[in-house]
């Protein structure tokens, strides 16, 4: 690559060193400037110049060749979730770009920072229905935090700098940059500076100290306070401050599935999971608390159930970075806008050292009831068939809460979230808001590449596994040591559970006549094992975890097991059913 260096004089009369390179080379240089070490993608006609430039930088940027663009973007999401750095994803125009849409929608609703770069047909052909032309800017607009089409190489540095800044700042989210092929080839004077400010964009709202004072006084006077924490704590890197707040105030704290792992699952004040398949105590007592303190969570309908029956008795304090979330679903009596790390730090100074023994005992009593009616049966079933919970329970025993658990979507996801133990943050990776089946396998690969020193376990059902099964090849090619646990019930279990409970057991298109997964995975040269009996389970899990490399463990579980407790659709959270 021959580089011509020159100087240009900017408007402010500042001299900046520039290089005369093409747009594609500039893109790759910017990825290096932004400390991108891993990029996920799939090449094609309109993005070939960028792939050509990547060829020269293979030592600095590992490109992970997925087997489908959806796999690439979910892998980038998994990477972003464990590192909190933007995941980078490349795809070509047309179908390459449209295959990213599910991942973009997933990242948008779960606030995952991504920078996606798509190739586009040459600018002279835009709008001509050229080969592999699609209006990706139009299509991706509802599912991106920001997007932009570049038709001139001179725009590349500023637009990509903005892309990284927007993706990772404030409430993070996915950004898509579409670059026409001619702009990738075009030579221009390149120089780069990272972006730190956009005048029309306020990533972190200014903190209003009077709102903190109001919140602190309400917390100090509360008799039955309850904290609900979400991913906002994780995204703000506020785990330490949050733990201090919980411990100082002695307030029972419950999590959304994206907030899971922000606080040790064994912490005495961690009272468990909220929502439809959450724990009995936090759901029931949401409707008895006097102060509800929501931190970095958005009152999703899976958390709140029927809003007209949700925490009507409580005064709501909402700590939130995104002003659009305030009063969106639940009216906040005391909104506290700002980055969770900052607002919690302020709050910590004003709250009194406290404990709520009697109130906490209510949660402990509820947990006892739930243990007797649900948990014991799930973890130590008296049935011949294996349960998903007992598998997760044995994994806990061996990982001691140290592993990253990546789940797909469905019954196994709820079981994995309910029963997995976590002692480290950023360790529960799952598709929360969008509920994207097929997320788990590629996201686990991305998570492993983002956290190579940690054990990464993908927990997947037989339905979701087949939606992105081709990514086994990517795992094989990258030699990523991903542990794949398939909980096979030969059904689309969650839909079947609803059919059983609400559609008179009319199992419409939920039974799966599956292929032999052992043969398939062997075809990808990944070691496999299948377990159907209890006495072989623990030993197989040990083997699975101890094997030095990717490993596929298939466990046949009860075909018609249900996940309980359950807040039925349309019911209030306190109407939670234990059986």
């Amino acid at each position: 690559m021959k580089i011509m260096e020159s100087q240009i004089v900017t408007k402010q009369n500042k001299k900046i060193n520039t290089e005369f390179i093409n747009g594609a080379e500039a893109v790759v240089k910017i990825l290096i400037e932004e400390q991108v070490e891993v990029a996920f993608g799939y090449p094609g006609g309109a993005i070939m110049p960028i792939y050509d430039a990547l060829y020269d930088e293979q030592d600095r940027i590992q490109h992970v060749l997925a087997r489908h663009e959806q796999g690439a973007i979910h892998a980038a999401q998994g990477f972003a979730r464990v590192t909190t750095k933007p995941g980078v994803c490349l795809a070509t125009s047309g179908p390459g770009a449209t295959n990213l849409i599910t991942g973009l929608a997933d990242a948008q609703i779960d606030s995952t920072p991504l920078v996606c770069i798509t190739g586009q047909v040459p600018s002279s052909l835009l709008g001509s229905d050229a080969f592999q032309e699609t209006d990706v800017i139009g299509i991706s607009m509802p599912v991106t935090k920001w997007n932009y089409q570049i038709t001139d190489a001179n725009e590349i540095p500023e637009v990509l700098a903005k892309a990284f800044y927007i993706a990772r700042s404030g409430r993070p989210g996915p950004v898509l940059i579409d670059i026409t092929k001619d702009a990738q080839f075009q030579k221009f004077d390149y120089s780069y500076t990272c972006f730190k400010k956009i005048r029309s964009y306020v990533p972190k709202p200014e903190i209003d100290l009077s709102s903190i004072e109001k919140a602190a006084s309400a917390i100090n006077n509360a008799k039955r306070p309850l904290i609900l924490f979400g991913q906002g704590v994780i995204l703000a890197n506020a785990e330490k401050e949050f733990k201090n707040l919980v411990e100082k105030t002695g307030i029972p704290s419950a999590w959304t599935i994206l907030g899971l792992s922000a606080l040790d699952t064994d912490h005495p004040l961690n009272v468990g999971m909220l929502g439809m398949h959450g724990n009995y105590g936090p759901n029931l007592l949401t409707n008895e608390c006097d102060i509800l303190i929501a931190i970095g969570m958005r009152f999703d309908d899976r958390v709140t159930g029927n809003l007209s029956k949700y925490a009507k008795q409580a005064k709501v304090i909402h700590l939130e970075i995104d002003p659009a979330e305030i009063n969106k679903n639940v009216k906040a009596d005391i909104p506290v806008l700002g980055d969770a790390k900052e607002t919690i730090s302020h709050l910590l100074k004003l709250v009194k050292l406290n404990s709520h023994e009697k109130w906490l005992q209510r949660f402990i009593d509820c947990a006892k009831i739930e243990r007797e009616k649900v948990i014991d049966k799930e973890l130590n079933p008296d049935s011949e068939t294996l349960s998903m919970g007992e598998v997760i329970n044995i994994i806990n025993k061996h990982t001691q809460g140290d592993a990253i658990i990546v789940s797909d979507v469905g019954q196994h996801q709820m079981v994995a979230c309910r029963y997995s133990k976590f002692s480290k943050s950023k360790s529960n990776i799952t598709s929360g808001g969008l509920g994207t089946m097929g997320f788990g396998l590629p996201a686990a690969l991305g998570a492993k590449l983002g956290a190579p020193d940690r054990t990464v376990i993908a927990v997947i059902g037989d339905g979701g596994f087949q939606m992105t099964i081709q990514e086994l090849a990517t795992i094989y090619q990258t030699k990523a040591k991903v542990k794949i646990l398939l909980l096979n019930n030969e059904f689309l279990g969650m839909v079947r559970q609803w059919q059983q409970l609400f559609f008179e057991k009319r199992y419409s298109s939920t039974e799966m006549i599956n292929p032999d997964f052992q043969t398939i995975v062997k075809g990808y040269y990944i070691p496999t094992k299948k377990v159907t009996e209890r006495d072989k389970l623990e030993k197989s899990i040990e083997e699975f975890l101890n094997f030095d490399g990717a490993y596929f463990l298939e466990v046949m579980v009860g075909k018609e097991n249900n996940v309980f407790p359950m807040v039925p659709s349309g019911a209030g959270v306190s109407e939670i059913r234990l059986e």
Partner: protein
Amino acid sequence: MTRMQKEEFTITAYTENHVGLLHRITIIFTKRKVNIESITASESEKDGIHRFTIAVTETEEAVEKIVKQIEKQIEVLKADYYKNKEVVQQEVALYKIPSKSLTNGIEVERIVRQHNARFLTIEKGFLVIEKAGFRRETKALFDDLIPFGINEFVRSGRIAVSREEHGIGEYVEQILSKS
């Protein structure tokens, strides 16, 4: 009017002048199945800053949420909403009628004067009348012109300024002066 009853609102947004922003704003309405009655984009009093004026009939609660979503867009500096009594608003309408109606006495001239409208142009076969005002006023002139035959009619979207001395332009000024 309670917050749950639908009424007319004017939404104003100060934005950067950016390709695709119109689409980004309209999909916020589409996603919630809210109909945009009119939308106007133009320059504002601030150099390089554009202004959207959007008319909707919705509940205040829905409008409040929509405005927050608009303001959340990267290139939007500030957005707000107003009830009818909080804005001064106008629409412009053009009416094309056959020029023979002028020769049939002074009736058309009288109507145009009565409605505070004016002739924009008089051509060989037709004439064009312009009227600025509220919806009901442009509609009233339309009704009065029906007997002469209306070849073409068009009405612009609502444009509006707030009844405050500065309005949200002041916030925009603060944002711009900080940058």
